[in-house]
């Protein structure tokens, strides 16, 4: 059979925008303030892990601009974020309660304590890549319901190798569902470098294979991330999925249990570009405000520490009570037996 002409439409060129990017001062301050909270939370959380308060922690240090910038572009009345274990900046960016969120890292409850419908983000997802499919299904529902809402799926360069990410991109493109696939390309998937994960080094390059537009952006410039995500969301609402690849760097270890010296050198870490926090500081360009914002961030995170330490206990009954909406008789019996055998008073 003769080769048919390719019907793949040339995906729209969304980035950079023709008129450049301007983000007003108020917005920049809001972004910068939450980036500071994220940085302080990360720095403190690593300390809390060393003190034995947290069993483990995956810091997001270096990815604050990518996370906060994209999250703040969401419309909280109708959008939803699907997050992973390293997306604290998204949680901060959505002003979601940090103590509820930290319940997950504290090993109190898989997924923490927040109601996704209220805080507009999913519980943190431990299976890399799964966020992409949930975002796609959720987005399809918005289309059916005509809410105008869009989903944003967060995942990493490593996760981009998962079949689920490909299935999600393909489904979303075919069904023109309003979803933004937000890849934080931080150069590493645990110990595996980008060149062993993604041939050519760009996840966004795959988007054209699904006939969808993509945007490759500086993930360390919060203004750029915010503006790009807004453009992507508007496109998604009207026309369907978009891939944003935010180039950034995982400045810390994969998690507190990790030893990066086994796979990357200090020279490499030192050769990085500017810290996204410093970029934000220059964008805000108001040192007096900055000093105050730093203080507020310290205070906010300190409040989280205090709340986390006032012992929040988890009731063992919860282990049984949330498996189903309607518990099975077998589970009722197991729960009764658990109660009898652990109630030693």
């Amino acid at each position, binding site marked *: 059979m003769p080769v048919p002409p390719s019907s793949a439409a040339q995906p729209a060129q969304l980035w950079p925008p023709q008129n450049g990017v301007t983000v007003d001062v108020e917005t920049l301050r809001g972004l910068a303030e939450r980036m500071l909270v994220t940085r302080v939370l990360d720095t403190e959380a690593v300390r809390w892990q060393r003190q034995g308060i947290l069993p483990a922690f995956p810091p997001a240090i270096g990815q604050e601009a990518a996370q906060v910038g994209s999250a703040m572009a969401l419309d909280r009345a109708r959008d939803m974020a699907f997050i992973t274990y390293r997306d604290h900046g998204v949680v901060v960016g959505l002003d979601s309660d940090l103590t509820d969120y930290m319940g997950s890292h504290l090993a109190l*409850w*898989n*997924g923490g*304590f927040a*109601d*996704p*419908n209220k805080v507009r983000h*999913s*519980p943190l997802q431990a*299976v890399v890549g*799964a966020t*992409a*499919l*949930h*975002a*796609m*299904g*959720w*987005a*399809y*529902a*918005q*289309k*059916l*319901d005509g809410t105008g809402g869009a*989903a944003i799926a967060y995942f990493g360069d490593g996760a981009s190798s998962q*079949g*689920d990410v490909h*299935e*999600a991109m*393909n*489904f979303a493109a*075919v*069904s023109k569902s309003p979803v933004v696939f937000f890849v934080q390309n931080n150069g590493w998937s645990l110990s595996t470098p980008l060149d062993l994960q993604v041939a050519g080094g760009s996840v966004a390059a795959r988007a054209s294979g699904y006939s969808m537009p993509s945007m490759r952006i500086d993930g360390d410039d919060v203004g750029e991330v915010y503006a790009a995500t807004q453009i992507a969301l508007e496109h998604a609402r009207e026309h369907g999925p978009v891939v944003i690849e935010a180039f950034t760097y995982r400045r810390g270890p994969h998690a507190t249990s990790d030893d990066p010296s086994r796979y990357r050198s200090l020279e490499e870490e030192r050769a990085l570009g500017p810290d996204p926090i410093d970029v934000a500081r220059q964008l805000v360009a108001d040192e007096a405000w900055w000093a105050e914002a730093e203080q507020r961030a310290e205070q906010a995170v300190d409040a989280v520490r205090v709340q986390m330490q006032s012992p929040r206990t988890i009731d063992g009954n*919860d282990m049984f*009570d*949330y*498996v*189903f*909406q*309607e518990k*099975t*008789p*077998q589970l009722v019996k197991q729960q009764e037996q658990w109660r009898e055998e652990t109630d030693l008073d």
Partner: protein
Amino acid sequence: MTEQLSTQKAINTALREILADDAKSLVFGEDVGKLGGVFRVTDGLQTEFGAHRVIDTPLAESGILGMAAGLAMAGHRPIPEVQFDGFAYPAMNQIISQIARTNYRSRGATPMQMVLRIPSYGGIRAPELHGESIEATLAHVPGLKVVSPSNPHQAYHLLRRAHEMPDPVMFMEPKSRYWNRGDVDFENPGDLEGSLVAREGEDLTIIAWGAMVARSLEVAELAAEDDVSIEVVDARWLKPLDEDGLVASVAKTGRAVIVHEAPRTAGLGAEIGQLLTERLWGKLEAPVERVTGYDVPTPAGDLEDEYIPSIDRILFGVQRSLEY
């Protein structure tokens, strides 16, 4: 109103009514739209309800189930299909790690109300991975419910019931019985919880589900000619198992033969056998017997009859129990 329908048509009718009654329901999977599914179970639904609610998805099972999870998070009540039992395997990541635990993870805030339809079990000479019996695999997963109808009436009513349930239900359709007809009484569903005595008897209980119920009824008929009175219990709900119902029957007869197509080791026969031993210790007349598939990959069609419990093999099981 009572109507003679095939199981395939009964499920089709239930789906049509669900789509009509519940604006949040949707049906999707591979080839379920225009074609009406490889077994025509979804025939005509796309024409009636539109391609946005009866969706021909790309060919990707994890995607189908992950999409279902996302839809359920948004408050929809999806009814996805995997085309054949063996193709639930590529979707296990989403079924086990996501759908089964999203209610738990979100502390009940985002229930996974959905019914996954799985044309199941062997008996139609299909190629590899088109005749798997995965009920034990699914029943083992915390957070899932599993049901398997055995006839058109059960198929219609259990599907409607499953759709109303707030938890994810794995709906295992006996594909070899799709074309068998039977009365569907639309107004009188009967009790839809737990197991069902499909035939009463005194001497021995056969516990079966799916396509093995009809076969066990044939066995009971043959045994009756030899004055052996067999009770056949259609387990129906494989998770949760109807412990009281199964125990009540075996308490009466004192003997149990469990029949399933799935491999024996760690199959549901073991679970039910343990239940009966635990609850009826000292009251059983014989050890619980199992007549099952073997611990081999479901064989190609030519060997299918060697693998799936036959009438003769079930009769041997009955005999072993009676002669113990």
